[in-house]
């Protein structure tokens, strides 16, 4: 199953490589990983998307907790949560019809066109991973020149929060 794991970790040199190293050493998979400092500059927050059986996810949680720099770990997929990812996508849009089509799709998906050139558009789109995938699918024959995805960020709904 796909799990979204939030990690609060000391904002120190090497912290990221401890997490990445753990995953590669133990053969766990990382689908995406995002990391940035929090409102408390001494802490970083990571969102890690992984897949595995329940046993593996349990081990991942335990092994993450075992890292000395890790302050808190939460498996967001265990409760209600919000998942967001941002994508920048550059497409070839030549000719009236193609340009219209991209603009229309972008509107439907709630995207924004950030850059326009004679032959290209850059669309910015935010949503959960599935929505971004659907957008790419919906583009159909429109040639994609580049996609950049931020990786998933996640947060639990309601009162529940990840704090030091």
């Amino acid at each position, binding site marked *: 199953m796909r799990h979204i794991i939030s990690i609060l970790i000391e904002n120190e*040199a*090497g912290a990221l490589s401890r997490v990445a190293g753990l995953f590669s050493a133990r053969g766990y998979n990382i689908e995406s990983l995002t990391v940035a400092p929090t409102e408390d500059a001494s802490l970083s927050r990571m969102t890690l998307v992984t897949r595995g059986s329940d046993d593996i996810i349990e081990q991942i949680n*335990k092994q993450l*907790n075992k890292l*000395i720099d*890790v*302050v808190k770990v939460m498996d967001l997929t265990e409760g209600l949560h919000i998942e967001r990812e941002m994508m920048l996508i550059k497409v070839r849009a030549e000719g009236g019809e193609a340009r219209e089509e991209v603009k229309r799709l972008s509107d439907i998906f709630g995207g924004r066109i950030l850059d326009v050139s004679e032959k290209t558009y850059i669309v910015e789109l935010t949503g959960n991973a599935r929505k971004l995938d659907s957008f790419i699918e919906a583009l159909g024959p429109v040639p994609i020149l580049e996609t950049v995805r931020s990786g998933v960020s996640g947060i639990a709904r309601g009162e529940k929060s990840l704090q*030091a």
Partner: protein
Amino acid sequence: MELTGAEIIVRFLQDEGVEYVFGYPGGAVLHIYDAIYQQEGVKHVLVRHEQAATHAADGYARSTGKPGVVLVTSGPGATNAVTGIATAYMDSIPMVVLTGQVNSSLIGNDAFQEVDSVGITRPCVKHNFLVKDVAELATTLKKAFFIATTGRPGPVVVDIPKDVTAHRCHYSHPKRVSIRSYNPVVKGHPVQIKKALGLILAAKRPVLYTGGGVVLNDSAKQLTEFAKLLRLPVTNTSMGLGGYPATDDQFLGMLGMHGTYEANMAVSHCDLLIAIGARFDDRVTGNIAKFAPRAKIIHVDIDPASISKNVKVDVPIVGSVDHVLKEMINAIQATEERADAAALGHWWDQISEWRAKQCLKYDRSSPLIKPQFVIEKLYEVTQGDAFVTSDVGQHQMWAAQFYKFDKPRRWVNSGGLGTMGFGLPAAMGVQLAHPKAAVACVTGEGSIQMNIQELSTCMQYQLPIKVICLNNGYLGMVRQWQEFFYESRYSHSYMESLPDFVKLAEAYGHIGMHINQPGDVEAALQEAFKQKKRFVFLNFVTDKSENVYPMVPAGAGLDEMILV
């Protein structure tokens, strides 16, 4: 008080009560060596190879419970230390390793003798640090000792750039540190302990399976009390030997690949397995699908990540072994309830039958020296009271099977990583920590050559270690696998061009003895152990074809042993 970084390190080690630092100098640590020169509190032991420094510190730690301390230079000094760090990591040994680093301004420039020590050691340390500012040095060192010695212990590396050891800063000994992200659990959860007790009192065929955690946590007394209260059969892992007295009749011996028939059969047939401070290593479980198939499992461990990692358990208890055992003993004493005595009686009858197989028997009338016989005699001559370190191979298994350890911290071996070359340097650490004790290093002619240069260190520090070399002319354990599983194609398991070990020992200033008759074994050992002040190398020419039995072949269940 303003001190240089180098002085801070040495002062800190003094204030921390560190007796010995095992090390080897080089450019990046010259300031530290200069500070060591100007004091007497901390004694430095100069080894002949950095790997030996880590193993010696490891032996010191295993035999005392105190952290071992290592000091090496940057680059090759640090990389040479890696094997010893990984060895300590696998066996959860408390150790602090100080590695020199090039000047801060040069880091990342491929400077002379620069390696990314923090990066290289990351997967085999409990934690590591790079000290960037002399102002952080003392607290970082304190954190390193705190992390190394608490929770599930392990090695911690502190990488210190040379300029940091020259800069000055105010020093006072940090009495305490707290790390918000590191709070090891000590107390087992009362609800879990109660659940465990319910299973224990309901069991008809219980077995206690205990590991290194009992030794590391100094819980041998509690374990014995607990086992005695309920007359539980006890088996130990190799790391756990000495955690329960081997001469006690509730002891079934070691379990696992070269475990006894009775221990492996008991685990295979029990209805309750109580695992304490053990981690279900593959050398212990054999084929995991066939492991303890009829049993409910209770698992007590300080490390939550050890629980349900290899084997799903029914009642996990996270906590220090010592605390959980005390709680269990109290609870049992507080209740009248006891397990079904008749069932336990039957269980013991069954175990006696398995015991009657005498799985460790060997040919006692052989004209050749049997390696098992040497260990038996070693046990007798040292009255079971020696510290025994070992290398890795057949000799290691024979030592584990035939030396009956009644006390913890007496058996010092590389269980997890299986590091050949561990035995001799580990014995140095043990002997320094216990200057009056009998210390034996059981080894093979293959393993001993992996750190043979330490014969020189043993001379310098007058360490009266006795090397018991079971010389079978083969990389015996490799040969055994080739005989069993590769139709006796002995690919590169034969040791050609062996040195004359007697002359070699003598060249280093020690006593060497050559023994090739079974009748001479005991007298030779007697004579060697009479030499209280001298290092003696005993070269026993043993039966080349002897194998370690029982053996659970890879992929088989514990009840599918090859027997003699």
